[in-house]
């Protein structure tokens, strides 16, 4: 087997840490904030029902109802606060040969997907995303479904452009037999 093994010095390599990342769309952050706030409001309403109405109505269910609604409110609040703070930190970068996506508030995580290893690619749009002209880019590799590479919060056109870029990449999505 012929193998080319040129020595590399770490400094000459293109570095992930030097990438300039672009943030996800402001609309995406806005939509997520609206959704999480709505969930918190719904949980607050549930809490009010549990404290004010249920005790009079079915007294036996008082304690469980209070606990369940308080737990739900707590979880939804934590998720809402986390999304509020972490969503603006989501960003992505596109290089000639790979895609990177960075996210996380306490743990910053950078995932890099080489384009030559992309098996197939999907642009996904839910009903709310469609209304705001947003989309999500999914790149599947042989690493399995646990490791599907996802960039959320792209403009629909941008996602389509990225898909075209990846499909045009001469090595990607080759039909491996």
């Amino acid at each position, binding site marked *: 087997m012929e193998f080319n*093994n040129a020595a590399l010095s770490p400094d000459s390599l293109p570095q992930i840490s030097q990438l300039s990342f672009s943030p996800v769309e402001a609309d995406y952050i806005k939509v997520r904030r609206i959704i999480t706030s709505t969930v918190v409001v719904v949980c607050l309403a549930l809490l009010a029902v549990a404290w004010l109405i249920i005790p009079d109505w079915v007294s036996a269910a008082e304690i469980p109802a209070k606990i369940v609604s308080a737990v739900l409110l707590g979880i939804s609040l934590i998720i809402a606060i986390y999304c509020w703070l972490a969503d603006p930190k989501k960003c992505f970068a596109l290089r000639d040969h790979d895609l990177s996506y960075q996210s996380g508030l306490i743990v*910053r*995580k950078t995932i890099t997907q080489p384009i030559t290893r992309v098996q197939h690619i999907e642009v996904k749009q839910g009903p709310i995303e469609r209304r705001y002209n947003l989309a999500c880019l999914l790149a599947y590799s*042989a*690493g*399995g479904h646990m490791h599907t590479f996802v960039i959320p919060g792209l403009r629909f056109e941008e996602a389509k452009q990225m898909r075209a870029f990846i499909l045009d990449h001469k090595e990607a999505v080759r039909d491996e*037999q």
Partner: protein
Amino acid sequence: MSSEPIAHNDGEWHRISPIAVVFFLAKTLKQLGGQFIYLVPAFLVLGNSIKENPGVTIPGLLGLLLLLIGFAVASFLVYRYRLTDDTIEIRSGIFNKTQTHLPFTRIQNIRFEQPIYYRISDYCCMQLDTAGSAKNEAKLIAIKMDHAVALKETILGARAEEATLKDGANSKAEEPQALADEVVLNRRSVMDLVIHGLTNNRIWIFLGAAAPLFDEFADSIGSAFSYIGIDLQQLFDVDSQGYAVVALAALSFTMIAMMILALFSVAGSILTYYGYTLSRAGNRYIRRSGLLTKHEVALPLRRLQSIEFKQDWLDLVLKRVNLTFKQNQTGNPGQPGVESNSKLIVPSVYPDEAYDLANDAMPGTQLNRAAFKSIHSRFMISKMLFLWIPISLLASAVVWLNTDWLKAIEVGAAIVALGALVSYLRWRRWGFSGDEQFVYVRKGFIGVSYKCFERHKLQQISQSQSWFMRRRNLCKIQFVLASGSISIPYLPVADAVDLVDGSLFITESSGKSWM
């Protein structure tokens, strides 16, 4: 009506050998066995009424058996296959008819399976795997061994031809070797398998095979003990025996249980790996083994993703290694412990043999002899802070609420000490290394495992850094391969840069395929 031992690519529909009836019957029984495990309690409840009405149950069971045989015969009658120059077609199914159409070039892997009832007549099952979904795979049931081998050569020939047409140099080099003679690389003796059974928990193999007998077995243990004059209830009664005797009894029972488990494990090991040979035919590895059902698993070397060199504590004592060659695992998570098709294991070899085998498959790999760097000692601190100390606090709180604070402190301290020991042992094992071609990772607790993969086989990579790691300039990286992911925690960012950027560079610039 049965098939002749010559490969006939005549485009006619052929019937398989009638011995396939046995195969269909065994398959249905196995499936039913799997279903009825859940009904065992119901049968136990109904046991008495079944016993009381033999006039209904015996004809009922006979009828069921006849129905199953009829089903097997019908399955055999509708099963046809047809070969042309470049495709294989299979028609099967009584109610749900399926017709599988499989061009030779799409066949990724060919396996032979020889259940015990085929052994005498030299028939085998030929399993044809395709790349993608499990739906598309085909199984030729009951064809003559020599016919199967001839067909395999034809399929491999067709594939090699197509690969040559498709893209140039490297597949050309592969082609003449693909059909070359086999060289046996490794054999395992029964002694090796006994060691393998002792050092590895292979008990599930045995339990899986013995599952239908299980209930009866559990029942008879109790009666066996009372037969030889041991009354279990009396033996474990603290009031009449005192603590020392009960403790001794418990200890000896544990020992006996361990011995029985070890024996089962050895039996499991021999069941799967009896007559083990690992051979190389050109660029493919072939594993053959099995006491009752002979399995043949082939691994084309270009599909090899990673190699694992694993020693449990008993392996360290006995100086043995389990070497695993892993290939593409996507969409095939496999059951725990079950030897899936995506792995090729060489059980309990000597470390030197393992090193040589690894080097045969991945020339130039250092595997366990690489110069490993250890990860940062913050690993231990974080494990203590975020795992062991919370657990110990929780446990002490529970103890405090139930008894007194002195006991709570004792329990808490014991858990912290245990956690510290575990964290230290694990930290000591963690190590990583990389050269221009490979990345090596060492990990373990009491035992040790070394993993190695070629950098260009990388599918995806991720690098993460928590707030605590950032202050120490540390991070965690995770390599995603087609055979699963491999991560390294708490390594210095400088080393991570070399591993991440270097591996990405090689993956993206080499233009080499991952399979």
